């Protein structure tokens, strides 16, 4: 039994949400059931992810490989749950549950009608499943398909509010994301044309042998991949869809979009870059420099843009642009510390940004106010929400003992290893900027006189979700032990080809 679970674990972890998601539309009248089902799926997801992580850690990084339908590698589709995959699966699981909890009970307010709730959940679970698939798949075309699934569900989530603006943002997002997909698919096509393989391992081997025959095609493939995933994950100049999309989505949706969806594409980019092209090829084409440069620009620009926003959710959305910069920067460092830091930062940002978006969403839902200056006195009326917001802001700024610091610390060490001080400065400046755009919110919320109307914290599940996320921020910051270990393993795995 145990062995059966272990061998089928990678596919299990993907299938569970997907399977449930298809059932949901049939249950659209019984919302309570739907909600509980989703939550239990998420709990199951956490259990499986933790189990997967424990297995991977126990095996000292030996990946679990699952071959779909029993076809072996070059022909069949392969799922490979290595340290990297397990790490991201864990991230998805621990963010997924609080978001699902938060959705419980009050979603119909945001989505518009009770009937739409089930559809929302369908998309949500689809997204979770697709992201988990991205984490574990080892096949390029599979990546494309899952990316498309994720994109469509994202767009669906964005458009789930019954507002004209939602449709507008969603359409814009859809168009740009599809262009991105086209680029991704083109890139996959080029790789396939050169190597004749879609399995990452095989493609990578072949590529390292023959890339010198047609270097220009490899360039093109690189460019297509960078632009494609860049659009999808909102790397700085390509981020234009993100603020609208993230700010009009319902609170849990923006949380999961900012926290996970963007990360999923980044994760795919990481896999393509390191598993397919390989670090040495990256260095040949100086892709790592592009990444560092793009990361730095994104940090600075995103932060400045965030500062210029007056709406809370838009500010958070731009903050995501800046934080994506950190992750991209870490990808470009090509050393263990930098990659581990980047991965850990990815996880911690997922947690922190979901917490931020959830609390911001709660505030907006309760008060109906979008602008930061209207939030006076919220801290006293909604203590739990603002406490979560404060803790996660501090985490994002990078106060020691909170999760953001560890990621940043490793990123800093990684950039110092490359003997380049500029990224170090930019990373630190980013923290200062981050404080600059988040603290006014906190100040206004706590230290401005409160309005007289009767505002309250959201309901119990929402509170639990926020508290859960806050605890996670603290736990990841104080005892990151095995998670950081896993990130290190994953970084080693990424660099193994070097």
């Amino acid at each position, binding site marked *: 039994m145990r062995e059966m679970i272990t061998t089928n674990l990678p596919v299990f972890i993907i299938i569970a949400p997907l399977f449930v998601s298809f059932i949901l539309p049939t249950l659209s009248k019984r919302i309570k059931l739907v909600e509980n089902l989703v939550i239990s799926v998420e709990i199951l997801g956490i259990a499986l992810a933790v189990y997967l992580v424990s297995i991977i850690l126990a095996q000292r990084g030996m990946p679990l490989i699952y071959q779909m339908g029993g076809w072996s590698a070059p022909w069949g589709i392969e799922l490979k749950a290595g340290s990297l995959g397990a790490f991201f699966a864990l991230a998805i699981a621990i963010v997924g549950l609080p978001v699902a909890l938060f959705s419980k009970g009050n979603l119909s307010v945001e989505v518009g009608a009770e009937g739409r709730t089930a559809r929302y959940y369908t998309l949500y679970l689809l997204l979770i499943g697709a992201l988990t698939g991205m984490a574990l798949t080892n096949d390029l075309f599979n990546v494309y398909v899952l990316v498309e699934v994720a994109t469509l569900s994202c*767009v669906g989530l964005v458009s789930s509010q019954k507002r*004209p603006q939602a*449709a507008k943002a969603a359409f814009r997002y*859809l168009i740009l994301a*599809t262009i991105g997909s086209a680029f991704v*698919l083109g890139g996959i*096509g080029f790789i396939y044309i050169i190597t004749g393989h879609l399995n990452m391992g095989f493609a990578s081997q072949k590529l390292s042998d023959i890339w010198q025959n047609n270097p220009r095609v490899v360039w093109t493939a690189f460019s297509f991949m960078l632009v494609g995933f860049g659009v999808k994950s909102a790397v700085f100049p390509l981020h234009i869809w993100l603020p609208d999309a993230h700010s009009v989505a319902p609170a849990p949706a923006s949380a999961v979009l900012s926290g996970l969806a963007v990360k999923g594409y980044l994760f795919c980019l990481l896999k393509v870059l390191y598993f397919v092209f390989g670090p040495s090829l990256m260095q040949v084409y100086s892709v790592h420099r592009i990444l560092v440069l793009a990361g730095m620009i994104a940090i600075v620009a995103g932060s400045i843009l965030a500062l210029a926003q007056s709406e809370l959710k838009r500010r958070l959305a731009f903050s995501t642009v800046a934080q994506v910069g950190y992750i991209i920067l870490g990808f470009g460092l090509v050393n263990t510390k930098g990659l581990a830091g980047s991965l850990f930062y990815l996880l911690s940002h997922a947690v922190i940004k979901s917490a931020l978006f959830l609390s911001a969403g709660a505030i907006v839902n309760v008060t109906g106010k979008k602008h930061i200056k209207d939030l006076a006195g919220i801290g006293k009326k909604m203590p739990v929400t603002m406490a979560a917001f404060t803790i996660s802001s501090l985490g994002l700024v990078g106060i020691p003992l909170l999760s953001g610091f560890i990621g940043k610390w490793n990123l800093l060490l990684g950039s110092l290893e490359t003997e380049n001080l500029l990224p170090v400065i930019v990373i630190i400046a980013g923290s200062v900027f981050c404080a600059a755009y988040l603290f006014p919110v906190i100040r206004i919320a706590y230290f401005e006189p409160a309005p007289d109307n009767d505002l309250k914290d959201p309901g119990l599940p929402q509170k639990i979700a926020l508290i859960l996320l806050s605890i996670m921020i603290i736990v990841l910051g104080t005892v990151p032990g095995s998670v950081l270990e896993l990130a290190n393993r994953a970084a080693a795995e990424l660099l193994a080809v070097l």
Partner: protein
Amino acid sequence: MRELIDKLIVNYPYVAALIIFVIGAMTVLTRSNVFKKLLGINIMESAIFIMFVASGNIRGGSAPILNGNNSEALFINPLPSALMLTGIVVSVSVSAFALALILRLYRSYGTTDLRRIALMGNEVADK
């Protein structure tokens, strides 16, 4: 020069794919009508499909299903074509979804021109 032209002629499907891709991309990016954008996307994706399918093609080859027993025969690689089926499905679903969104846009704004929609901005919003 001649070599280049030769190469282009020999690889005509790729050249065609490239041209179509650019046409599609320009259409998406430069047109403000939502339908045209959608069509542009479809054209772009078609270009990619062509490229994929062309990559599997071998001149003079045939589909493996036609004479599967002959191990000497030149086979066309069927995998890209199979993959592109998936791709087309994805593309269709994107189009469907986009159409649905267009419908919503048209209902709320009364136009399908994105530029006008943007100009209308927040007046329509939050009814």
